[in-house]
C-alpha cells in the first residue's frame, strides 16, 4: 500500500511563455544557463511557488528528456569544428550531458535529495513522474519536483527526418508537478490538486524505433492494481499522440485493450503545439483539475515499446 501521493503544484513553460526571464534569479543564471536549462529552472520555481513549498534540502528532482540539451551539444562541437581546440567552450561542456537540466534546477532551488534524469523516446516525462510517485509511495522520498524538458535542435530534427523517422510534432518546453506524501502535504496545509493513485511502467515487445505487433500490455493493468481500481473506474484518457500516425493507432489499441470493454475519448495535450517531456506534468495536473469521481489515465508509449501509465484522481476523490 505505502504512502499516498499528493499533487500540490504545477509549473509548465514553453517558448511562448512571456516571463521566463523573471523566474531567473541573477545575472549568472541569465548568462550561464542554456535556453533549455532556463526553461527547466523557470518551470521548477513556478511549480514550487504554486505548491507553496520552500526550497529545502531533502527535495528530490526527476527530469525526463528525449534528447537533452542538444542545442548546446551541437554548439560545443561546432566550436571545435570551426576553430579547433581554442574554439571549445568549457561553459558549454557540462550541458552536453543530459543531466544538465536536473543539475541546474537542483542548484537553483537548493534540492539536495535524490536527483535523476531519465531519458527515453516519447515517454520520458511520464516516466519521471511515475518513478517519483513510486519513490514517494515507498517512503524513500518526501517531496519531489517531477517532470521533464526538451528543446528540439534543428540538426537533430533534420537528421531524424533524413534517417526516415516518423514525423512528430515537437516543441521546446519544460514542466514539473510537485509530488509529496499526502500526509506531509496535509500537515503543512498545502492545497492538494489531486493524487497519483497508481503508476507503472513496462515495455511492450517491439523492435527499436518500431511499433509493436501486439495490443496487449501490462503497465495499465499494473497501475490499476496499485490504485486498487478497476478499468471501469477510468473516465478520461490523456495520451502521448503527437503526429506519428502508426504510433498513435498503436497507443489507442493498447489503451482500449487494457480498459476493454470501455472505450473512452482520448485527448493529447501535445497537439497542436508540439510535444516536449514537460507536457507530462501538464497532463497530470490537467487530469487532476478536472476532478470528478472517475480516475484519469495519463498514458504514453514510445516506438521501441516503452510504456508508462499514471492514474490520477482529482481533489474531490482524494479527501474520501
Amino acid at each position, binding site marked *: 500500500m505505502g504512502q499516498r501521493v499528493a499533487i500540490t503544484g504545477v509549473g509548465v513553460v514553453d517558448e511562448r511563455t512571456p516571463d521566463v526571464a523573471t523566474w531567473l534569479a541573477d545575472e549568472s543564471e541569465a548568462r550561464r544557463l542554456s535556453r533549455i536549462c532556463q526553461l527547466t529552472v523557470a518551470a521548477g520555481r513556478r511549480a514550487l511557488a504554486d505548491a507553496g513549498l520552500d526550497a529545502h534540502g531533502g527535495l528530490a528532482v526527476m527530469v525526463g528528456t*528525449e534528447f537533452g540539451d542538444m542545442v548546446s*551539444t*551541437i554548439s*560545443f*562541437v*561546432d566550436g*571545435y*569544428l570551426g576553430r*579547433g*581546440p581554442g574554439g*571549445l*567552450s*568549457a561553459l558549454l*561542456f*557540462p550541458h*552536453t*550531458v*543530459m*543531466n*544538465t537540466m*536536473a*543539475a*541546474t534546477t*537542483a*542548484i537553483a*532551488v*537548493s*534540492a*539536495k*535529495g*535524490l*536527483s*535523476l*534524469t*531519465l*531519458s*527515453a*523516446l516519447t515517454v*520520458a516525462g511520464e*516516466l519521471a513522474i511515475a518513478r517519483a510517485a*513510486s*519513490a514517494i509511495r515507498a517512503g*524513500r522520498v518526501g517531496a519531489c519536483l517531477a517532470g521533464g524538458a526538451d528543446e528540439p535542435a534543428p540538426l537533430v530534427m533534420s*537528421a*531524424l527526418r*533524413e*534517417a526516415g*523517422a516518423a514525423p512528430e510534432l515537437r516543441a521546446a518546453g519544460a514542466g514539473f508537478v510537485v509530488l509529496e506524501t499526502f500526509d506531509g502535504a496535509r500537515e503543512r496545509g498545502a492545497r492538494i490538486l489531486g493524487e497519483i493513485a497508481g503508476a*507503472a*511502467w*513496462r*515495455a*511492450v*515487445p*517491439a*523492435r*527499436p524505433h518500431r511499433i509493436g505487433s501486439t495490443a496487449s500490455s501490462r503497465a495499465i493493468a499494473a497501475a490499476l492494481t496499485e490504485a486498487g481500481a478497476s478499468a471501469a473506474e477510468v473516465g478520461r484518457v490523456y495520451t502521448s499522440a503527437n503526429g506519428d500516425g502508426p504510433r498513435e493507432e498503436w497507443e489507442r489499441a493498447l489503451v482500449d485493450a487494457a480498459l476493454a470493454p470501455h472505450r473512452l475519448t482520448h485527448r493529447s495535450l501535445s497537439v497542436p503545439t508540439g510535444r516536449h517531456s514537460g507536457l507530462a506534468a501538464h497532463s497530470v495536473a490537467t487530469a487532476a483539475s478536472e476532478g470528478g469521481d472517475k480516475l484519469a489515465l495519463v498514458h504514453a508509449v514510445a516506438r*521501441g*515499446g*516503452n510504456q508508462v501509465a499514471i492514474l490520477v484522481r482529482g481533489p474531490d476523490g482524494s479527501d474520501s
Partner: protein
Amino acid sequence: MKPVAITGLGVVSPFGAGVKAFWEGLSSGVCAIRPITLIDTEGFRCRIAAEVPGPIAGSARRSRADRLALAAAREALDDAGVDRGDREDAAVIVGAVGGGMLEAEAWHWRRMRGSTEPVPRPLASSFPSAHADVIGSTLGLTGPRETVVTACSSGAASLAMAADLVGDGVVPVALAGGVDALTRICFMGFNALRLLDAAPCRPFDRDRRGMSIGEGAAFVVLEDPARARARGARVYAELVGYGMTGDAFHVTSPHPEGEGMARAMRIALQGAGVAAASVGYANAHGTATAQNDRIEARAMRDVFGEGGLLVSSTKSMIGHTMAAAGTLEAVATVLAVSSELVPPTAQLETPDPEIPFDCVPRVAREATVEFAISNSFGFGGQNVTLLFKRAA
C-alpha cells in the same frame, strides 16, 4: 532498503571482453591506458585513454556503445542463468551518457567538411536511451525499462534504481548496468576543462595531474535473495544499501567539504543498518583530479575516520569510463568482496599526505571484507554510494 542478491556479472572493459579478463587485469595492477586510436587527438594536451582493445563483437549496423552494452548484458544474464521465461518480467536499467555519439560525431564531422552522404543507420540510435531499447528487444526483456543519466555516476544509479524495483516487489529480477564508448565530446570536453593528465592518471598520488578517460560496459543481475536461494543461484554479494544525493552546489565542482558525498555514504550505511566500522573497503570515485581525490578523502574521513578502511581507485587501470564507471567499479567491489582480494591503485608512488587512507599502492591486497562501498560522483553534484555485503 531490502537487500538484493547479485547473481550475474558481465563486463567489456579496457582489458577486453569478459569478467575474467577484467578481474585478472585489476588484480594484477595492470594499467590499460594507452594512446587513443578511435578518434583524432591532434592539438590536444592529453592524447591517451583506456580503450576497449580489438574488434567489438556484434553487427556493424549497431553503434560501438550498443555492441559493448549487448555483450556485457548477455554475459551477465547467462552468468546468472536467467532464461527466456524469466526475462519477460525482468527490468532493464541502463546508465548512459554518450549513447551512440561516436558514430554521430563522425558523420557530423564529415558533413561539416562538405560530405553529402546520407544519414547512416546507427545514427537513429545516437541517444543514450537506445541501449535499453536494443538490449530489451534483443534479449527479450519486457519489464520496466529505464535509461538514467546522472553523468559520471550513471552506472551506479542504475543499480540503486534496480534494487528499488526488486525490493518493492515490482520485478523478481533486474538487469542493470552502464555503458559508454569513447566520444570526441567527452575527450574534448575534459581537455577543455583541463582535467586530463597527459600521462596515465595517478589517483591519490601527491603529484597527480588529472584523470584519464576510458570506455566499457558492465551489467549485473539483481534478484530477490529468497528467489535466488530457491533456484540455487550463485550469489556473488548482496547490495544492502545505497545513498543518492545532490550537492546543489555547482555544475562541475564538488561541494568543497564533500558534504553531498559524505551524506550519500551515510545514507547508504543507515539504510542498511550497517556501522561505518564494519566497512573494510571503498572502491573510490578516485578520478585523480586534484580536487576530487582530496574532497572524496575528506568525505570518507568524516564518515569512516582516518585510515578506517582500505581505499583504492581502479580508474588508475581502466580510466574513467563515464557512465560505465559506476557499474565496472561495482563489479570490482563485488569481486573484491567475494574473492577476498582488494584491487590496487596503479601508478601510486607518493601517497598524498592529505589523504589519510591506505590506498593499496600498485599491488593487490588479500583481505577479508564483510562490507564494501563503491563511490561514484558526477557533474552537477550527483553522488551515489553503493554498499555491498559479502555473500553468506
